[in-house]
């Protein structure tokens, strides 16, 4: 795809290519870099935003303050994202098994119904969802009646909501993967007398590990990053996931608040950044499906 000639002209083209690629790196990292530098300055305005602070101007106070302010939110987000991610991946894997590996006549229309669910914007269901949890199934109040804190009940509602809207994409990811499994393998197991359940437990599930990695990573990022459902179903307060207090952090201050805002943004993004750095390839696979 490239010129393979060795003329000097080609060399310059390569140099230009790498120069553009590096400029793009600067473009994509500049907001993050600026944020990082601002978060460790005592005075956000002491140097240009993208320059590191002078040695005497360094501080960790924004980070400790932000971590303190967001600690509760981080815990809530973990309580939310971990079960939500595992449940939607598991349900997606099971649905894909029932609709792909097992064959029956009208499975394709059912599958189409699943996949269409991927494209629902959350705004389209906002009022029914919030009314459902507030009026028809107020888990928070039920919980409070038996001594479970109200916020935990509300958070459970949020988990179920995220699982429900995560099922379509998880099913599609697993379906793509299971379609390439050989029929002979499953058929052979069936001839040996393996039940449907046994085939799933002993053959399909162990083979799904790479796809589980992709799905778990994608879904974790989605649930962790959501603000809209968190805002409407749980709202601010004890049960709020980290995105809710983050949107608020430092808003009452003006320029002075940018240090803590930037630090807060990093604190809230840390789990997703760690996951992304460790499993970037799986993330890319998840989004490009």
């Amino acid at each position, binding site marked *: 795809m*490239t010129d393979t000639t060795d003329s000097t002209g080609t060399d310059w083209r390569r140099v230009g290519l790498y120069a553009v690629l590096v400029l793009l790196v600067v473009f994509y990292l500049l907001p993050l870099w600026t944020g990082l530098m601002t978060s460790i300055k005592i005075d956000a305005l002491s140097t240009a935003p993208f320059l590191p602070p002078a040695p005497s101007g360094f501080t960790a106070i924004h980070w400790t303050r932000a971590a303190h302010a967001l600690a509760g939110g981080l815990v809530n987000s973990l309580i939310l994202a971990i079960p939500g991610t595992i449940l939607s991946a598991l349900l997606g894997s099971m649905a894909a098994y029932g609709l792909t590996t097992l064959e029956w006549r*009208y499975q394709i229309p059912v599958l189409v119904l699943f996949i269409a669910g991927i494209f629902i914007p959350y705004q389209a*269901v906002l009022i029914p969802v919030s009314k459902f949890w507030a009026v028809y199934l107020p888990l928070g109040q039920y919980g409070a009646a038996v001594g479970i804190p109200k916020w935990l009940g509300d958070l459970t509602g949020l988990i179920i*909501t995220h699982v429900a809207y995560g099922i379509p994409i998880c099913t599609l990811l697993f379906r793509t993967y299971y379609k390439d499994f050989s029929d002979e393998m499953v058929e052979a197991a069936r001839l040996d007398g393996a039940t449907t359940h046994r085939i799933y437990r002993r053959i399909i599930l162990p083979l799904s590990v790479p796809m589980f990695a992709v799905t778990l990573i994608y879904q974790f990022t989605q649930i962790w990053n959501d603000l809209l459902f968190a805002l409407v179903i749980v709202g601010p307060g004890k049960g709020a996931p980290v995105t809710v207090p983050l949107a608020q952090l430092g808003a009452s201050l003006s320029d002075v608040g940018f240090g803590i805002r930037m630090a807060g943004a990093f604190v809230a993004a840390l789990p997703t950044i760690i996951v992304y750095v460790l499993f970037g390839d799986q993330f890319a696979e998840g989004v490009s499906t």
Partner: protein
Amino acid sequence: MREKLATLARTLFRRRRARTDGGEATANPSGGFLSDQFVSSLPYWLPAFLIMGLAVYGAIFWNFLLSLTDFQQFGNPDYGHLDLGMYAKAFGDQVFLGALQNTFALLVSFTLCCLVVGLLIAILVDQKIRYENTFRTIYLLPMALSFVVTAQFWLWMYNKQNGVVNIILGAFGLGPYEWIGNPALVLGAVVFALIWQFSGYAMVVYLAGLRAIPTEQFEAARVDGATTLRMYWRVIIPQLKGATISASVVLMVFALKAFDFLYSLSGSYYPPKVGHPRDDDGPAGVQRRPPRVRGGDRHHAVRARARHHRTLSRLPIPGR
């Protein structure tokens, strides 16, 4: 995703054909509706289907039903009188129409720019470069971040006195501009930030598309003496139609999710919960501004109708 849908359609078609020309005997290992396979598959997909069906299709239907009532924020909707009154009200409302216009402008400009930027970067990354994975990982990084997080970064980037954007423009003798506060500039500023966040996604999709094109086609175009520009324009880009469609659908969904981003740019207003007054366990010092919308007659049903378009209701309305 486009490919997947196409495969689905093909499978569907193939099955029909098999049934018509193959007859019952050949083959359908699947059998009829009440075959063993169907019954034993139920425990696997039915629970997921019920949860998803209730959440997606149930909620959409309910939302539609609510939009036909005169339901207000509190109390119970009266399903006895269904009419399109709220639609008429929504489309007669300047705020709603302005928001609709803004949403549309954002949707179109964001999706198109993302596709173009993503394609250009994908072509650059496809030139057999070194450290390809590193470059790709960096370009895709913003997409892994929450809208709330990226909004914080861009709020600082766009700061009038000290933001990086104005510093860079200042080096060319321009500005400083008030990006977020100025109605004429804010939509463009938001679109630019969103392109920053999601062009990496378009790049990954296009890269996969480019990789799927056989190398011979690149070579054949070369042998025919086509210039690089011409080769891409005439031979390669037309073959990326599938990637373009799949990327634009997903980008449009992201554009509608941009509510999180816009809310975080300005947000310190918390909505009351539907159905009962909000409980007062908010953190101390949280400001609770009233909603910006005018008047006390904001029916909830109007919002049910307007929900797609509310995303941008805080943005200015061009030409008003």
